[in-house]
Structure formats: C-alpha cells, structure tokens
C-alpha cells in the first residue's frame, strides 16, 4: 500500500489488545490525515453541466455528507477542495486560476468531466481551454460527460487515499520556498497569454488525436456558399397529412 509508511510500527495484534483497553496507538501522520480526509470542504463552484451532478451528489440520494465533504463553501478562503465542474472557457480560466491561488493550503483540485480535463467535446472551439491543467496542478482527473454522482464519490475517495499517503515532514505546504501560487493568465487578442504554463503542463510529443483525425477545424474550408436565391428545381413537396388518433 502506498501509505503504509504512515502506519505505526506497533504490531497489529498488540494494537487490537490495546484498543480493547481503550488505548489507541497511532502515528501523528495517520491522525493528521484522518482528520483532514474526513472533513474536506469543497468550494461551491460550478461552471457548467457537471455542476448539476455535483449538486445531485450533495443531495439526499447520493449524500456526499457520508464522506465528510458536504460543507460546500462559497468562499475559496475557507475551502480545501476545488471541484472544477464543467467547461473552462478562455474567458473563465483566469478566474479559476485566481480562485485556486486564493485557496488556503493544503488545497486539492478535482477536475470533474471531460471538459475540464482536456476540453471534452468542445475542445476545438476558439473559446474553450483545453484542460485547466494547463495552468494549475490537478490531483484527481474524473472522466465522464458528465460523470455520474457515484463517479464523483469515487473521485473523492481517491483523493482521500492521496491525502492519507501524505506526511507532515514532506508535504509541500510546509516546505520553505514552495511555490503554490500560479500566475494568472491575461486576455490576448486571439486567446489567453500564455497558452499554457510550461511549468505545469507541456504538450505531449505524440498527439494521437492529431495523427488519427488531423486538426478538425473546418472553418474556412468550405469555399462555396449556398445560393438560396436560386429558384427551386422542384416545388417543395407538401408534408403528408398526419394520421389521426385512434
């Protein structure tokens, strides 16, 4: 297990015996992480369709409260987890980065849905950012369009595993000179400046999508406009009368 080093070295049997007597043996890391993982406060921050599934997760049927993460905070200053639920457009991306910078340490990010991972179905648009991981680091990627509430719960559990594996001595936010604020991109004349932050993300050497499909922007490829003025070759056929109800 990835987080075994956080376990105490006391023998499991002995631990059980002690627990019967009301003595709990643990490590400080385990205690610290147990507390953190059971009270993740997500930010109440919805961008698009996935936000509705996020709300559904918080509602009675799926009940995110079972995982200690029901306290949606409207303010980034009070939240531990940003669920980027929906398409990040170029117009919105600077605000998302700014919100990330405003969150207090320790902070985590789940990208919910295909759009926030890589642009999703809207990847080819002029105003859609191809993944928020171009500007900020991500902890859990959650595919789906939109992911079901169960998937969000699974993603949260994966995040809990990650939290469990962290140690106080080595965690990033206790290190000196650790940079966890990322510069906020500016609006340029054709898109965002910069297009991505190479410290966080770099384009892959092999772009399978490009190999397979090519760059699928077709704007400007069509060179012949339809001529609506031309008289119709045949008069339009009248629609057959609709059958009556029985």
């Amino acid at each position, binding site marked *: 297990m990835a987080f075994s080093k956080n376990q105490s070295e006391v023998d499991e049997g002995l631990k059980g015996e002690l627990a019967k007597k009301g003595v709990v043996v643990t490590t400080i890391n385990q205690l610290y992480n147990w507390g953190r993982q059971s009270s993740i406060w997500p930010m109440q921050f919805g961008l698009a369709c996935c936000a509705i599934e996020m709300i559904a997760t918080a509602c009675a049927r799926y009940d995110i409260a079972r995982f200690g993460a029901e306290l949606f905070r409207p303010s980034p200053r009070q939240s531990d987890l940003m669920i980027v639920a929906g398409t990040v457009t170029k*117009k919105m991306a600077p605000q998302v980065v700014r919100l990330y910078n405003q969150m207090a340490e320790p902070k985590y990010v789940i990208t919910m849905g295909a759009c926030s991972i890589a642009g999703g179905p809207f990847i*080819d648009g*002029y*105003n859609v950012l*191809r993944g928020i991981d171009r500007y900020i680091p991500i902890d859990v990627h959650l595919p789906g369009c939109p992911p079901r509430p169960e998937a969000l719960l699974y993603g949260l559990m994966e995040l809990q595993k990650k939290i469990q594996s962290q140690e106080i001595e080595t965690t990033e936010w206790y290190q000196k000179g650790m940079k966890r604020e990322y*510069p906020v*991109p*500016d*609006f*340029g*004349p*054709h*898109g965002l*400046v*910069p*297009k*991505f*932050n*190479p*410290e966080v993300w*770099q*384009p892959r050497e092999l*772009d399978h999508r490009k190999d397979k*499909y*090519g*760059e*699928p*922007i*077709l*704007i*400007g*490829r*069509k*060179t*012949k*406009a*339809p001529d*609506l*003025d031309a008289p*119709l070759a045949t008069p339009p056929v009248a629609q057959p009368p609709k059958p009556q109800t029985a």
Partner: protein
Amino acid sequence: MNLQEIQSKIEAALPGIRLKPVRESLLIEDAAMLPKVAAFLKNDPVLALDYLSSVTGADYLKYLESVYHLYSVEKKTGPVVLRVRVTRDSPRIPSLVPIYRGAEFQEREAFDMYGLYFENHPDLRRIFMWEGFEGFPMRKDYEQEDSEILETADIEWLDRHGAKVPEGMRKKAADLKAQGKRAVAEKTGKSIE
C-alpha cells in the same frame, strides 16, 4: 397571409422599397430601409408582428447577412422572415432595438461573432468574447490560434512572471516571429463528425 401578399402590402405602404423573395423570406435590398419595414409590420393591424423571435448573423463569403424571424403574439401567426445583406467592407445595418427591445442581446451577439455593425444600438459591445479580442470568430475566414505552440508574447509573459520555458519552445516562437506568422490551427484536416 402568404409571402406575396405581405410583399405587396409593404410595397404599397412604403413606395420605392425594393423587396425580393428568397425562399420563404423577404430580402430587403437596401439595408437602411429595415427599421421602416419592421415598424410597418409591427404596427399594421392585420399582421401585428409584435414579437421578434430571432436575429441571426451569417457569413456567405461574398456578403454578410442578418436574418429576422417575426411572429405575432396577438394573432398567433408567423413567421415572417426578413433578411438584409451587407458587404464585408462596410457591414452596417440599422439596429432594430428602438422597435424591438428583444433584439438587444442578439444584435450584440451578431456583432461579436460576425462583426455586423448595428447602427443606433444603445450598447454595442462584445457579448461573449472579452474586450480586446481581435477578429470575428464565426466568420468563415477566421484564423484560430494553435493552442499547443507558444508565441513570443507568451514567452515574454512567462519570463516576466519568472516561469521556466524549455528551449525548444523558445526557438519555435522565435522562428515564427522571424517568419512574421502566428501559430494558427490547420484548416485542412479530416473532419471529426
């Protein structure tokens, strides 16, 4: 009332107007006449087209077009479709906002996407894109940026903010600048569908 009757009605009311039926719509050949036609259709007691449903900008390469769908809430009839055409060089169309408030955001949208300039619009700004965006992204000749290749402006910005930039990207950006080109997405790919 069919299209022909409406056409003759408008021609009788507004002498000198040139109308041409295009499919199911009426093309107003002189764009400046549009508000007069719209006001007539709205105030005519028989037609009473008091509801402007949709304003659409479109690019037909040789000209730009704006299409209006008018309905009547009172009579529950419609649509009467009007269209005006303008050249790419001077895409000026009189705004319909003084007659139909509902045109406000749709005209702003057509301005944002196609660069149709609506005269007398009370607040003609970009609606979806930010101020400072160049070009009109829905025009057929718009060149979209390639979002995988950094340009000089990006490199300068990153240097200013103290971010490390790999040498390869720096070189590519310098090459592009030397050629005087932008990193533009290819247009000749296979279609996705």
